[in-house]
């Protein structure tokens, strides 16, 4: 979709001459968001490391006092089985983020390879078929497709990662193919060819780095979606299984008793939001900075 937007430069007939105060020393657009996001993420990662190390309990250990409200001993209270919510919330940090990372990196790798392959490949028939399958997969909401695959694979985090690998790659493949097509047309590829560089050299020195910079940017925002997706699947009982400490599963656990005890639901929920928002700020900050440099 393209909209025409020319002819607006002559706004004041003084284009660019209106002096903006302090332009030189101004922070780049998006820096604040980026820093806030990074600090939030690092804090979460540190807590995820320290809390399980320093806690006197284990995630499965019950202290026989269910539904203790948050107090100075149990900062986030205890859940229905008398487990320390504080410990469980932070114990889940590396599991949630780790599985999400895996669920992004595998599709990222598959998709980039397939996408570049389609762009440089010669077989028209293969291109058309694979291209159409990519379109077909991309038409489905990711969650729906993942749910369907888990029906075959059986519930569990392992299935979640496999399901993501089988479906999410198509989005990366589409992106990588489009990008690779554009890069292929660019002057420097032609120049490299004229200079007689070998094909693999052109592929790995020029095409792959240029394509992956684009897909990496997408991967960051995708990571947020995948974190939410994994928690969502666990919430539905299709991801992490009890007694694993995982945010979505914990929220699902606490849901029937939400009325009498909000803490087993809200604290894992906050942690999930915290993780998502921190990455979202980082992504937003990075794109803003990028645009700032370009303009």
């Amino acid at each position, binding site marked *: 979709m393209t909209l025409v937007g020319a002819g607006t430069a002559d*706004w004041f007939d003084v284009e660019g001459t209106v002096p903006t105060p302090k332009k030189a020393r101004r922070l780049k657009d998006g820096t604040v968001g980026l820093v806030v996001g990074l600090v939030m993420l690092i804090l979460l990662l540190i807590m995820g490391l320290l809390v399980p190390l320093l806690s006197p309990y284990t995630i499965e250990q019950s202290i026989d006092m269910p539904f203790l409200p948050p107090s100075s001993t149990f900062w986030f209270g205890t859940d229905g089985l008398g487990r320390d919510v504080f410990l469980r919330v932070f114990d889940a940090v590396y599991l949630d983020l780790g599985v999400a990372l895996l669920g992004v990196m595998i599709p990222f790798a598959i998709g980039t390879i397939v996408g570049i392959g389609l762009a440089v490949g010669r077989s028209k028939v293969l291109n058309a078929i694979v291209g159409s399958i990519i379109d077909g997969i991309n038409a*489905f909401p990711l969650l729906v497709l993942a749910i*369907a695959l888990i029906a075959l694979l059986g519930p569990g985090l392992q299935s979640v990662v496999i399901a993501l690998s089988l479906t999410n790659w198509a989005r990366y493949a589409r992106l990588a193919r489009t990008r690779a097509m554009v890069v292929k047309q660019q002057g420097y590829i032609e120049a490299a060819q004229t200079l007689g560089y070998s094909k693999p050299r052109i592929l790995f020195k020029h095409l792959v780095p240029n394509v992956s910079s684009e897909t990496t940017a997408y991967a960051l925002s995708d990571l947020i979606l995948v974190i939410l997706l994994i928690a969502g699947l666990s919430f539905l009982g299709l991801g992490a299984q009890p007694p694993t400490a995982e945010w979505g599963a914990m929220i699902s656990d606490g849901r029937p008793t939400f009325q009498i005890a909000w803490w087993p639901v809200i604290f894992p929920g906050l942690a999930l*939001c915290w993780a998502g*928002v921190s990455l979202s700020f980082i992504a*937003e900050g990075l794109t803003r900075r990028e645009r700032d440099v370009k303009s």
Partner: protein
Amino acid sequence: MTAPTPTTDAESALKESGHGDGPRPQSTGEKILRRTGRAIIVAFWVMVVAFMLIRLSPGDPVTAALGGDAAPETVEALRKTLGLDVDPLTQFWQYFTGLFQGDLGASLISGIPVTEMLRTNLPVTLWLILTTVVMTLVISIPLAMFIALARIPGLPYVFRTLTAIGLALPSFLVALILLYQFGLVWGIAPIFGYDPTFPANMQYLWLPALVNCVVLVPVLSRVLYSSILDTLDEEFVETGVIRGVRSFRFFWFYVLRPSLAPTVVLLSYMMGVMVGSTVILEIIFALPGIGRELVTAVTMRDYPVVQGIILVFGILVVFLSLLGDIVASILDPRVKLT
């Protein structure tokens, strides 16, 4: 001018007046036709993916359904029911022809045809989607208009932050909290149940739709806000002022309509994502839609139902994005459809 080619009136008008430039742009009708054709092709591949999903993915549906130690006769029988006893091409042909006769197979558990289930459950999901779209637009458009015209400094910043937060909120958590607050504390929303007739169903749908709005409204109003600002920068707004166009007509033709296309396209895309989250919302709000049916079928390993429902979801998304593009190109003839 070499070979005489048949030209339409518009084209010859251009040529005669001596300043035609480049190929004639497609008319809106042509664009829509081409876009619809593409949607049909994608829909076909959606069918293929839904078909392959059950057959090509790791794990055998029959063993998954019956467990590893079922009797060979039972396995054979299920294979036959699922139509897995013939070669894949025949299977696909049966599946494909079945689709056009409205046959999506039957539930392994209850024996009810999948199309029958869709007849009762699909409207619930469609109503939820429709309510979400209407609600989002009703909130986003005035909000974006107000903010763009009021010109409050620092607002884009607030918007950006809200969007970043909105996109990272898990809808199931928002749903739980809103359901608790509205349903249990204030008692202004039913916590379960559904009424399939029109005005009555709104009572059950407004809260789940509101949950979707929490994510959609910041994103959409931000996009609409910035395209309204872009539009206000354009020269044609000035020509409207000079022609003395006023009030409603001015806001619609000179401000809102030229700005809406990107928002509509984004909404249709976001709805595609939201269709996925309706699965979770239907479970939390106990709405008898196809999303809830899907999860039930998955836990029961009811493959024909799973396959039928994901097919419907896929087609739904294809249709939504087609609809978004069509509406956008009708609103704004500049929109190019690919």
